[in-house]
Every structure is written in C-alpha cells, then in structure tokens.
C-alpha cells in the first residue's frame, strides 16, 4: 500500500506496505438491523461525521437561508474485524436517510462490497440500496433479517421480488447472531472475489 508523505521529509518507504484495510458497507432501511449486525460480528463504535449540508441537504434541511454553512452530525456504525496483524476488515453501517447519499458515495469508494439488509415485511425499504449498488457495480449480497413473527420467504422469492441480477446472493440471516453474521460476510467476500475475477477476465478477453 502506498503512503502519502510530506514533501519535507522525502519519499515513501515500504516498511508498512503490507498493511491492508478492506471496507464493507452495511445498508438497508431504518430498523432493519444494521447496527445489530455490525455489533454481532465486530466491536462496534459510533462514528461521528460532521458534514456541512451545503448541497446535498439544502432542499430537505432548508433552514430558510439563515446560515449557509449548516453543519449536521451524522452518526454511523463502525466496526473492525482483525483478520491478522496487517489485515483488517472495516464495517460501516450506512446512514439511513436519503439526504446523506453524498456520504454513501464516499463510503463506497474502494469498498470491497456491501451487505443490503432486508426485512420481508417492508422489502421496499431496501430498494434504494439495491439500486445504488447495482448502478455502481459494487458487489453486494442481500441478507434477509428473519425477524420473529415475519412470514419466512425463501431466498428465491426475495430475489424475484427485488428483481436482482442473476447471481446476486440472497442469504437468510439473524442479525443478532454472530455466526449468522459471519456467514453473511463470508458469502459477500466470496461473491466479491468471483465478481472481481470475472471482470478481470472480461478486461483481458
């Protein structure tokens, strides 16, 4: 990994070049279990970003032009899973509201992939996330959080209802359960690897 370094002290060195950080996003509607999932598989911490809503939020968060520099705090879930020294997985629960799309853009930069959590009682809540990742060709899996009391649907039903591209994995999960959460992440990493290989082959052939 390349390191930025100030001009004053000279060139990069490669001592820490093996350190690698991978980013996975956890998206989905409000109350679907994003915080629960991140907390189940990692040590979760709240992360504050202080965003100036100059463009993105203006229309929604219109304060009547009192102050051009409306600053708002957006809280995100954030967790780290250390695979080994020098290799970590970072999980980010994406902020739910549409007016924070601009944060999604930043979060998805260089992301390995995303988990879109879905609740079959209000499947439409995850449409924006599905659209978002499909359009940007970011590998994602749909994880159906099986709330008690919700009628259980098969993965194929969900895939059909969401009109997913062929191959996009749908996993049934319990966001509260560590092993279940781990399985979701494993399916995502496997899928991201397959997508990546396929794209490499496409680009040479």
């Amino acid at each position, binding site marked *: 990994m390349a390191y930025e370094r100030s001009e004053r002290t000279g060139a990069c060195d490669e*001592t*820490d070049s093996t350190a690698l950080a991978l980013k996975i996003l956890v998206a989905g509607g409000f109350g679907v279990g994003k915080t629960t999932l991140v907390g189940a598989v990692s040590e979760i911490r709240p992360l504050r970003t202080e965003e100036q809503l100059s463009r993105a939020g203006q229309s929604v968060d219109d304060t009547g032009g009192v102050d051009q*520099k409306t600053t708002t705090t957006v809280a995100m879930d954030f967790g780290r899973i250390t695979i080994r020294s020098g290799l970590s997985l970072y999980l980010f629960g994406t902020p739910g509201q549409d007016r924070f799309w601009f944060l999604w853009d930043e979060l998805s930069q260089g992301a*390995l992939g995303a988990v879109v959590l879905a609740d079959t009682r209000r499947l439409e809540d995850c449409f924006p996330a599905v659209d978002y990742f499909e359009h940007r060709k970011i590998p994602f899996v749909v994880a159906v959080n099986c709330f008690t009391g919700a009628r259980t649907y098969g993965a194929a039903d969900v895939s059909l209802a969401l009109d997913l591209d062929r191959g996009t994995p749908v996993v049934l999960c319990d966001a509260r359960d560590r092993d279940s959460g*781990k399985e979701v992440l494993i399916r995502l990493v496997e899928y*991201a*690897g397959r997508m990546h290989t396929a794209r490499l082959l496409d680009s040479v052939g």
Partner: protein
Amino acid sequence: MNEDSTGDGPSAPGSQWYDAEAGPLVRPYAMTGGRTKPGPSNVRFDLIALVVVDDDPPGPADEALLGPEHRSLLTLCRAETQSVAELAADADLPVGVVRVLLGDLLESGFVRVSRPVPPAQLPDERILREVIDGLRAL
C-alpha cells in the same frame, strides 16, 4: 464547504497551526481554526486510510508546539496503526475534524497516511481467501 468568511480566529493554544484566513468558528471546527478541509496537501483521507507515525519525525521541540488535539491524535497513532475512522472514534471527534488535524500532522512530517485501495485494484484471491478463513475462525 467554503472557508472564506469573516470573523476572527481564536488565539487558542497551538494556534500556529491555524491559517490566518480561517473562517468563523462553528464548533467543532474551532480546534482546526475553522478549517474544514486539510491543508496544502489537499487530500481527503479515506475513512480506512491507515495512519502510521513517521519513522523520521520532527524533534520534541516541534512536538511541543502542537495543540492538545494534535497531540492526542499522535498518541493514538503511536499506540497502533489505525484507520482514520478509528482515530475519530477513539478521539471522539468528528471525522471532518480529524481529517484536518491529520493533514497538519502529515504536512509537518509526524505521520504518514496510506492511500485507499482504488476500486479497480481489489485485493487478490489469496487475500480474500485469507479473509474468508479468518472470518470462519473468528
């Protein structure tokens, strides 16, 4: 995000880091002298960019000039190589503020910051295999 506005900057400790034209102080950007963007290096650090202490840092005299927030960040960096996001969470500061402070530390040669992995350069299969095995073993 514009930085040109009227208003006097604070004369807080460590204010030698603040640029003169720094704008009005809407907390929590007060500790960055009102700056909402990093300095001349003009990089917007990725949330997972890793920060390591420079192996040839400025001396103690320069370090003594740092403001308290700069110093506490530096202390966190010394404990362990961490991502920008972790530093923000640990220091309990908003990410935007941490970006500015890290920009200062980078400019003055205290730390180095990794670039994020460009999307086209996803890690190779071996690494992904390692991640999968690591997750299973968790």
